[in-house]
């Protein structure tokens, strides 16, 4: 506070200018915020709009804001076997997220009820695996997958996405478990509950929202993943991002169709993220920021 008090001479001037600045600020903040929001959201909005255009309306200069909307592009995409890609993505995402939760919930709980010796080391081991670049492991992963006949299978993606999301899930879940009052667990323990009973009957219902938020974060990362998908799958197990890329190289520039496909690809995660936006920050910072 002393640093502020030291600036006393500036105070008088500040006070006279105060109310005036305040009024300008009142208009300035929402205006700037809305401009920024529209600017950042515009590419997304444009993608959404272009998906309902005819190709002729997508290629115009100046760009067309008003047009006769059509579902033609969506029809085209599905007649072009978009469904298998969608199913592959959904399978890889959902199964890997379930496996992550199955392994990470007990782990995070074990780390939240201290003391386990070296719990801090365990936590930091997990997070360090997330910090290693995936390119550092892709070469042997490719060779192993090839030798194990796992190339171009959804199984390979499930195994990798599980490992990819494990550290985030452990950290995030632990931060939710830490918020459960110790007294509740102690009461359960006095009543003679085992660790497992304590976890399943008492703690899990309390942190259900946290588990849902963790699952959403895992879904977001798995659904959007591209590097493993493009290098380890080709036709049978290819996921939605791979579909999008194949689209542009094989068919040249079909903007409207591309936009429709991109909208379909992005929508699940966009909705999930909007719903979970309060929890997003915790997932992205491994539970460090709440």
């Amino acid at each position, binding site marked *: 506070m002393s640093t502020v008090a030291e600036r006393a001479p500036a105070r008088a001037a500040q006070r006279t200018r105060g109310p005036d600045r305040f009024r300008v600020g009142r208009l300035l903040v929402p205006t700037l915020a809305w401009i920024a929001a529209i600017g*950042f959201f515009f590419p997304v909005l444009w993608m959404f709009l272009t998906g309902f255009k005819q190709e002729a309306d997508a290629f115009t200069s100046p760009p067309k804001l008003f047009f006769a909307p059509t579902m033609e592009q969506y029809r085209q995409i599905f007649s072009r076997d978009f469904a298998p890609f969608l199913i592959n993505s959904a399978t890889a995402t959902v199964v890997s997220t379930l496996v992550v939760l199955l392994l990470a919930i007990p782990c995070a709980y074990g780390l939240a009820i201290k003391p386990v010796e070296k719990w801090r080391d365990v936590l930091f081991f997990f997070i360090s695996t997330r910090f290693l670049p995936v390119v550092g492991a892709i070469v042997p992963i490719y060779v192993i997958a090839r030798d194990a006949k796992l190339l171009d299978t959804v199984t390979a993606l499930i195994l990798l996405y599980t490992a990819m999301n494990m550290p985030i899930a452990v950290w995030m879940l632990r931060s939710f478990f830490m918020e459960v009052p110790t007294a509740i667990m102690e009461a359960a323990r006095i009543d003679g509950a085992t660790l497992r009973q304590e976890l399943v009957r008492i703690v899990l219902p309390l942190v259900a929202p946290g588990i849902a938020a963790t699952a959403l974060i895992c879904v977001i990362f798995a659904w959007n993943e591209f590097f493993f998908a493009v290098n380890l799958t080709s036709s049978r197990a290819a996921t939605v991002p791979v579909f999008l890329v194949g689209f542009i190289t094989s068919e040249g520039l079909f903007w409207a169709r591309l936009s429709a496909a991109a909208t379909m690809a992005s929508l699940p995660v966009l909705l999930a993220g909007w719903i979970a936006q309060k929890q997003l920050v915790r997932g992205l910072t491994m539970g460090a920021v709440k």
Partner: protein
Amino acid sequence: MTVTQDRAKERAVALRERAAKAAVARRNRWARRSLILPAMIYTILVTQIPFVITIWYSLQSWNLLRPGTRHFVGLSNYGAVFSQTGFRTAVVNTVGFTASAVLFSLAIGLVLAILLDQKFRGRAVVRTLLISPFLIMPVAGALLWKTTMFHPVFGIVNFVLKPFGVGTLDWASRFPMPTVITVAVWQWTPFMMIILLSGLQSQSTDILEAARVDGAGNWQIFRHLTLPHLRTYMELCVLLGSIFIVQTFDSIFIITQGGPGQATTNLPYFLYLQAFRRFEIGQAAALAIVTTIGTIIIATIALRVLSNLFKGEELEPR
């Protein structure tokens, strides 16, 4: 009963109790370990073993397109990596790309976070719109920027810039690096913003009120109270942001294919070319090791920051 017998009995009881307690403690320890171990073993198997194998591969001359020629060559792959001009360019590109993307998105994210920290009508909607670029599938985002935004003739960017005398500029080939940086900043600004916003909202209002009562202006409060408070959050932004942005692959793969020439080839893309275009497994592995060591250096600093954030946490048993 004699006194000594009594003592012996007591001691026996005490010993038995201690043994029982130790057994319970041991069982508890194992119960807890058994909770932790499955996740840990899985993670070690899938993430650490491949890394060790990468080291082994990096010591071999091995091209998947020439079966049967695989042999041990010691450290010569590393020599090859460091003497390639392509590698040095990729390192410089990676550093430049990461540093600019992180700093721009941090700066813009800070401004947006400050705006969102104020109360105004529609704040929740603005916030929802602003986080959207981060949620859009990166591949989809990159494709859209490449086509509908940056296209020389039909793109929105040139349309918007037309009044400023920009004609049919082909951004991706004339200014490849700024182009991919722009897309990265668009994608990562929301990430920075939500972390910094949490930081701003965790500030104690009591202190801010007190400062205001003392007559501090907005700028003074921001400079002397808010910025120091935000420091940890900004560190976290920079470090997590760097770790994720260093690994950028999607947008470079889609927008520029690392080009023109080598202008936007970063390390992940360079490694991809080595491994999946030329199938030089040995050299790609050596490259992977070098990249990983570089990242470990950044990650170590990141972990230190994270662990400082966790220092406040109590160690009491629960």
